[in-house]
């Protein structure tokens, strides 16, 4: 065999090439009716194993994608579900506020509590309503459950309220019915958190646990009848003179998200029947 033929191919190679080319052209020239059965026969015989492998790979890929998608959806639902209790609580608050608003009828403005981070949040509250909305200093701030505090400073679009939890806060109070009067201030208890104390109750008058304490209307700041809290028990007594009672608050400032600021025109009103006492801060042992 010549060197050139050895290196670049023999006659047999050329014949093989030509034969294959001719067969390819024959395949190309085949009518559609013949092409389909041949292709089908190849797919179901020689190509069946590799097509099965490819099918398995496609299935595995789809399952992986499906798993990733399902995991993402599950995570999204879990995240959404985490906010459900918070949304329910806010919804309940807003419904209570709507009911209170319809009962009050006039002389108030709604405000959102813009809770801040830090230890002072809960002692003073930033409200979303200000001078432009009619808010004035010393305006009472209430929630569906009862008294929250009093406005201390007013800006055009916001205001700052002193909550009853503030150490300087005082409100003239009375037991429902107006037979006993006293002064309510905050009391920070170590175990039970923010509480109130009702001072100046005559020694001879006993208050049963669960008795509701409301604003008296004295002093010209708060209208009469806004729930403040309910009696928990005797805190201290000075023998023969007066007793101080511990109160569960009707509203805890840190838990409210929406409030109402009353206008001065409501100061002389009596609001006893306007409040939803079931919206007050729940506590075991509290008698409503």
């Amino acid at each position, binding site marked *: 065999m010549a060197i050139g033929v050895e*290196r*670049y*191919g*023999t006659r*047999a*190679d*050329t*014949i*093989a*090439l030509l034969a*294959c*080319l001719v*067969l*390819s*052209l*024959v*395949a*190309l*020239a*085949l009518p559609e009716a013949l*092409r*389909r059965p*041949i*292709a*089908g026969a*190849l*797919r179901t015989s*020689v*190509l069946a194993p*590799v*097509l099965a*492998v*490819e099918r398995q*790979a*496609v299935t595995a*890929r789809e399952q992986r994608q499906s798993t990733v998608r399902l995991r993402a959806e599950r995570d999204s639902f879990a995240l959404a579900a985490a906010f459900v209790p918070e949304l329910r609580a806010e919804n309940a608050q807003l419904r209570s506020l709507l009911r209170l608003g319809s009962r009050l009828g006039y002389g108030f403005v709604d405000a959102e509590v813009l809770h801040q981070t830090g230890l002072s949040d809960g002692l003073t509250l930033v409200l979303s309503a200000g001078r432009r909305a009619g808010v004035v200093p010393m305006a009472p701030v209430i929630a569906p459950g009862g008294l929250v505090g009093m406005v201390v400073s007013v800006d055009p679009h916001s205001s700052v309220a002193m909550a009853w939890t503030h150490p300087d806060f005082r409100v003239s109070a009375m037991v429902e019915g107006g037979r006993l009067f006293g002064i309510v201030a905050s009391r920070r208890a170590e175990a039970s958190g923010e509480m109130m104390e009702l001072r100046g109750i005559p020694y001879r008058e006993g208050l049963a646990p669960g008795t509701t304490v409301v604003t008296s209307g004295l002093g010209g700041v708060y209208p009469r009848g806004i729930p403040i809290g309910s009696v928990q028990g005797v805190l201290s007594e000075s023998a023969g003179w007066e007793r101080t009672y511990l109160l569960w608050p009707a509203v805890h400032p840190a838990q409210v998200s929406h409030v109402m600021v009353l206008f001065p025109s409501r100061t002389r009103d009596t609001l006893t029947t306007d409040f939803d006492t079931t919206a007050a801060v729940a506590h075991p042992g509290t008698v409503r």
Partner: protein
Amino acid sequence: MRIPPPRLKLALVLAVLVAAHFVLRPRFGPSPLAPDLVLVALLFFAIRSRPGAGAAAGFVVGLLMDAVTPTAFGSMAFALTVVGYLAGWLKAVVFPDNLLVNTVFVFAASLARDVLQVLAAGQLRSGAAALLVTSPFAALSTTAASLLALLVFRSWLRGVPTR
């Protein structure tokens, strides 16, 4: 007939490449830029065989590929017959284990396969855009895959006689 060990190794490499082609191809989805490992397997075989064997292998592989994409049955067989023959013929002038030669060789073979297939199918007008846009990138990905395969299986392929 007893198969010599180097030929057996080559057969194993080709089987791995074909299996990898059908396993990996779905990962690329419908992208035309997926590497064609069947072409790489054909080239690995043809460059280590006689031109006639390369042509026959190209025809068989092409016909099988035509069966799964039967728009122009026979066109891939035609293209791979020519590519397989040329690969066997060119072994006289190239060193198949050289990475640079392999790179140029696979890239050119991939492009040539696409051009010949379009010509054989008579789809030059509709396939011109694909030839200009996607074929070079597909050839690049196939070349990269062939380099990887050559690096992985280099010791196995080195012993295979190029006859």
